[in-house]
């Protein structure tokens, strides 16, 4: 089976309380334009909802936007649930307002990549395209 013939499937969503979805929608559109199938969950998702959705949709990766300041609990919670469900193979990446000092800890916990708010879209697309060869 050739990987190129098979579009990547990626879940894009927002966990936590903040209600800004402009950024994630732009990311979703940019990834669609790069040939990715985006499963968009919308706002205010719980970590449980994210993980169940990822499994039902058989995605390769989850991209979460967190602007609420709760990243230190939400990202590890998602990673924990993925492992519990035997879905530790699903890549987790994220974006949002995350202070520099929190980044190493989150990456060590298993978040594969964290994008700052002003990251050029090109970098995100490139990262996601890199997931293709990983499968």
């Amino acid at each position, binding site marked *: 089976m050739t990987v190129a013939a098979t*579009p990547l499937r990626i879940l894009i969503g927002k966990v936590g309380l903040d209600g800004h979805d402009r950024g994630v929608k732009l990311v979703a559109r940019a*990834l669609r334009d790069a040939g990715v199938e985006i499963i968009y*969950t*919308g706002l205010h998702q719980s970590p449980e*909802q994210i993980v169940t*959705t990822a499994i*039902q949709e058989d995605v390769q990766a989850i991209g979460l936007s967190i602007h609420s300041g709760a990243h230190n609990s939400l990202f590890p919670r998602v990673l924990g649930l993925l492992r519990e469900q*035997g879905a*530790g*193979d699903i890549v987790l990446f994220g974006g949002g307002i995350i202070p520099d000092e929190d980044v190493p800890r989150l990456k060590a916990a298993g978040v594969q990549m964290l994008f700052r708010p002003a990251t050029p879209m090109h970098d995100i697309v490139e990262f996601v395209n890199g997931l293709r060869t990983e499968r």
Partner: protein
Amino acid sequence: MTQGTTDRSFFTHNAAELAKQVQDGEVRAVARVISLLENRDPIGAAVLTHLSPSMNRAFVIGITGYPGTGKSTLIDQLIIAYRRLGQKVGVLAVDTSSPVTGGAVLGDRIRMQRHTDDPQVYIRSMATRGHQGGLAAATRQAIRVLEGAAYGVILIETVGVGQNELDVMHVVHTVVAVVAPGLGDDIQAMKAGLLEIADIVVVNKGDREGADATLRDLREWCKTVIRTVAVKGEGIAGLIAVIAEHERWRDLDSPELHKRRGLSIDLGTRAG
């Protein structure tokens, strides 16, 4: 890259084993087999041969209609209703792939996310990947997977269709066409196409101006027309009733029966 991220060890390549996992209702297996079928992987087709066809007892209901008429919101409500009846519910929501890039933003399930916490509900988004006709090429096979996993009710949302995307009539038992008030000339256009294949017509957004006129207009044309307000859950009980009636016809007799269009059911025409 981090170690372990490519570990797909849960996943077996043995078709018989995968089929068994599907029949045990394992969600990861169901999801993976649908992916294999979407990707035209031969293992997917092999799994289907192991799923017994005798399990073909599910209600398979197609929800079709123009973009934005409320198909996803209606499905959200139908899930509630069928869960109350104790059914395990599967949803396949089809949306269009970009013909240019092949990418897609699949957003139907946004309106159904509350059911994610219910292990008896499975929702899967499917992109058309260039397939015409309102469904994905693998939708029919995905229905067989869900039947194999004992989902008693399977709801199919087509892409927001125009006149000619009518494949749904070939893969489901009951076609529900959703329209919204204020269609004007579009109703004329629908009479050749969408309304012809519909077993049941739903006028959703029944709270909107013009709903009465649209209902009147459609009732001259179709036997079973239901008014709903999906955002408030109104009219859903009536819709469930006419769907059940329609499915019963199919059970009773020849497979031809369910193809009969314009089935008259008094209950339905008064509901909502």
